[in-house]
């Protein structure tokens, strides 16, 4: 998929810095990081332990306040030296989907209910939510598990249910934290295929933090972080 500069990025960070502590205990977790992620793209955030991957993901998720910089999400200025949006949870509910290392489904709800819940939170009626939840589960190939409780499905199936939940409100941005770390390489491949499909079909921007080198070739671009710096960007041209 050719990314032209004419397309507006869905995630745009400009000179984002974040430090923890002051003086002797100061840690610069993010130093003047600028990145853009475009619709239809799936990018990797990689780097050694402590390089700032989680910090950056948390900033994009609006759960960690940067020390300085600017951030636009889905063409809206969210942060400019301070938060510009009051209700960040509502913002996440509407704009951002999350995929976790462990599916993080609610154990007391079945697959359909887990997906329907976020739809209802966003204001759909229970009947609508139910219908769309089942549709999504079918789209992700787990329609046959729609009434199963999370504890009774396999890791790969649970991750698909979690992807269904992440895309339920049609967010333009999806953030994934080590989504394949708990899966064998075949299932990891399936999950990555589905995520690529979601990126392309929903015109979403997907940001994945990962240590799993087996999936690096699935990223359109890879951002290498080191000591809080964006060290280099690798383009994997033509992989979609």
């Amino acid at each position, binding site marked *: 998929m050719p990314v032209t500069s004419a397309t507006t990025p869905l995630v745009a960070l400009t000179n984002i810095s974040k430090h923890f502590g002051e003086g002797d205990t100061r840690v610069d977790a993010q130093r003047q990081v600028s990145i853009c992620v475009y619709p239809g793209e799936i990018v990797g955030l990689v780097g050694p332990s402590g390089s700032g991957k*989680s910090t950056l*993901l*948390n900033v994009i*998720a609006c*759960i*960690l306040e940067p020390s300085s910089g600017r951030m636009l999400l889905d063409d809206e200025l969210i942060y400019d030296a301070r938060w510009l949006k009051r209700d960040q*949870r*509502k*913002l*996440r*509910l*509407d704009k*951002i*989907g*999350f995929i*976790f*290392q462990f599916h*993080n489904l*609610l*154990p007391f709800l079945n697959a359909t209910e887990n997906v329907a819940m*976020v739809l209802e*939170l*966003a204001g759909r009626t229970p009947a609508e939510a139910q219908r769309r939840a089942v549709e999504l589960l079918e789209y992700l190939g787990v329609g046959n598990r729609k009434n199963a409780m999370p504890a009774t499905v396999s890791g790969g199936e649970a991750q698909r249910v979690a992807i269904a*939940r992440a895309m339920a409100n049609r967010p333009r941005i999806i953030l994934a*934290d*080590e989504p394949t770390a708990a899966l064998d390489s075949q299932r990891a491949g399936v999950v990555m295929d589905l995520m690529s499909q979601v990126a392309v079909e929903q015109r979403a921007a997907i940001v994945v933090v990962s240590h799993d080198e087996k999936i690096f070739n699935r990223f359109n671009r890879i951002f290498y972080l080191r000591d809080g710096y964006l060290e280099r960007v690798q383009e994997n041209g033509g992989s979609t």
Partner: protein
Amino acid sequence: MTVSAVIIALIIYTMTMDKIREIATLKLIGAPDRTIVGMIVQQAIALGLTGFLLGAALISSFRTYFPRRVVLQLQDGLALAAITLVVCLVASGLGVRLALRVDPAKALGG
């Protein structure tokens, strides 16, 4: 009564502790606090109701042995149910406080 309130509070607190990851996930995906508080209060009420029904069942099964001494009026029963409910709601405050403090970053790995 105080003792039972403390016990209920502790049970709800422990149940909430066990659910920190789920609570963090809810916050991260955008659930408002009232949804999360609602879930905890629901649990508290369920707990209280279970306790109350268990107690009521025990009393009525013992009644056959002490027919004259334990004559529980319907009104007393209702009052007791109301008290149990209030105790549970107050006791769930501790769990709610904990839940509101959970950092959504806990849902994401290190």
